[in-house]
């Protein structure tokens, strides 16, 4: 160390700084912070430095790692990545075969084997909200799921959307994802064609397209929808149809319904758009993966979310209970195939866990046997 023991040399430019300085006065780079004396004792074979020298916590971490590395030098290091990958490849191919054959059999047999799920209490609330819609009531239908999740989300949302249309309400589609406009079109046209609902002419719904900017875009839209989204997804002016002229803010919609698989998207709608709703209902159609992290908002009873339907089971239950009958399912997910898939998936996860235990025991035995040899 330098002889003036109350100086700290800057690593970047070699300038001598007073001990307390956190940044080098010459080039402004970070200075190493104070040495922790007892930490030094960890590094075997190091006589302690002057106790006033400084070491940053990151160097503290490195010293500890160095200490660990020195300590384990003697033992055979178990590599982080186990060399034999073959076991996992066979597991992967085996799982693929089992799942494909089971689903193929179930889809070809096409016999309703599993009983249909029943409506949860929050799905009942959601159904009441849709029943309360008067003809011509504007409904903001937010299609905010990634196209990858369209299988689950179509099965979940088709019953709700058909119910909204059966109430003669006026859905206005919007998305905060760039893929939203096409997703909404696919969703509506599939529903219109397959279910024979005749009143799905273009003037029965509006596709506003993509709202950019995530939370800040959503905040400005909820305050001034007409200025922020003047045009529809395909570029012609949006707001002259009768039910929409009066909409000046989000609270002018009779119901705001958010369809998403990402809890952050749902949370962003709750955080940014919720306060602007002034009591108007906010309903969530959630993928099964988002339900657990959104439940605290439902249970909080602070009225942030009024109704929630989640997962394929929620969609099937909603569709069974609604007053209208959908001639055929448009999403291609029959309940029995899906349920069989879940059961087989659960069994495969259990077997995979057991396989992991078996592999662990075998690796530890090899470890021991390798250790015994001179």
């Amino acid at each position, binding site marked *: 160390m330098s002889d003036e023991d109350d100086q700290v040399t800057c690593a970047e430019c070699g300038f001598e700084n007073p001990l307390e300085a956190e940044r080098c006065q010459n080039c402004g780079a970070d200075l190493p912070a104070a040495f922790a004396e007892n930490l030094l004792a960890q590094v075997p074979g190091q006589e302690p430095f002057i106790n006033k020298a400084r070491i940053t916590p990151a160097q503290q971490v490195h010293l500890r790692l160095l200490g660990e590395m020195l300590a384990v030098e003697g033992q055979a290091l178990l590599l982080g990545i186990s060399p034999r990958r073959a076991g996992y490849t066979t597991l992967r191919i085996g799982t693929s075969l089992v799942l494909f054959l089971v689903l193929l059999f179930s889809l070809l047999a096409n016999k309703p084997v599993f009983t249909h799920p029943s409506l949860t209490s929050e799905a009942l609330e959601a159904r009441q909200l849709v029943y309360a819609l008067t003809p011509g009531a504007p409904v903001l239908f937010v299609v905010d799921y990634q196209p990858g999740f369209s299988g689950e989300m179509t099965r979940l949302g088709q019953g709700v959307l058909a119910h909204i249309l059966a109430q003669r309400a006026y859905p206005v589609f919007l998305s905060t994802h760039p893929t939203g406009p096409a997703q909404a079109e696919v969703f509506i046209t599939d529903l219109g064609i397959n279910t024979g609902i005749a009143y799905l002419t273009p003037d029965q719904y509006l596709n506003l397209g993509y709202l950019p*900017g995530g939370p800040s875009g959503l905040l400005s839209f909820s305050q001034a929808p007409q200025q922020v989204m003047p045009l529809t*997804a395909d570029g012609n002016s949006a707001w002259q149809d009768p039910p929409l002229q009066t909409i000046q803010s989000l609270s002018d919609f009779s119901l705001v319904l958010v369809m998403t698989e990402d809890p952050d998207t749902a949370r962003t709608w709750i955080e940014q758009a919720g306060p602007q709703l002034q009591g108007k209902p906010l309903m969530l159609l959630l993928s099964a993966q988002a339900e657990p992290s959104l439940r605290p908002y439902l249970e909080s009873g602070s009225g942030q979310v009024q109704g929630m339907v989640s*997962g394929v089971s929620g969609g099937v239950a909603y569709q069974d209970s609604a007053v209208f009958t959908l001639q055929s399912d448009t999403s291609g997910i029959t309940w029995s195939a899906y349920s069989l898939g879940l059961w087989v998936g659960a069994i495969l996860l259990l077997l*995979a866990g057991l*396989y992991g235990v078996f592999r662990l025991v075998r690796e530890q035995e090899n470890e021991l046997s390798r250790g015994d040899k001179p």
Partner: protein
Amino acid sequence: MTQRRFPIFLLILAVAGGGIVLMGYWVDLPALVAVRNVLLRWAATLTGVAVLLGILNLLTVHWLKIIQPREGGVYSLVMLIAFVITFLVVAVDTPTGSWSVWIFRYIQLPVETSLLAILAVLLVVAVARLVVRRPDSFTLLFIGTAILFLVAATYLPGFDIPVVRSLRDWIVQVPVVAGARGLLLGIGLGVVATGLRILLGADRPYER
């Protein structure tokens, strides 16, 4: 020695813009709310334009792969051809036109749904690797809860075990609410910490 340039202008732009938007959550002055709405609208528009910047970068990366004789250039050529064809069709036919929806329905949807579908297999292998990597009570509880939730979603007639389903309902209404609430509060704290470091000028990622 490079005197670290400290562009005060960028810092003021970030802190002032952010400060006005943040104050708007609590202060209700009409002037502040008006300025805030303008700033939010600009931020939303700029975020949309930034997507174009990202697309330009993506195209340049693939273009460089084509002109440099590195292998993998063919894939980049295929990507650029697919880009040009789709861009022309969707631009002419509008994003919700029949051709555009055709491309979306028969090219983008099958690939994305299949990418998610193969996760149903990959996650099974991942669970096996998890057990080897971390054989402790946390993993046991994690896999056990997952299996219980998958099984409790549906039942074969005659095989219904009511206790499984009411156990699932209790778990999803009590421990999961508690765990999720704790996690969300924690993540909220982390987000506030990260955001404040930027608004107080301690972190300046925009500096060159």
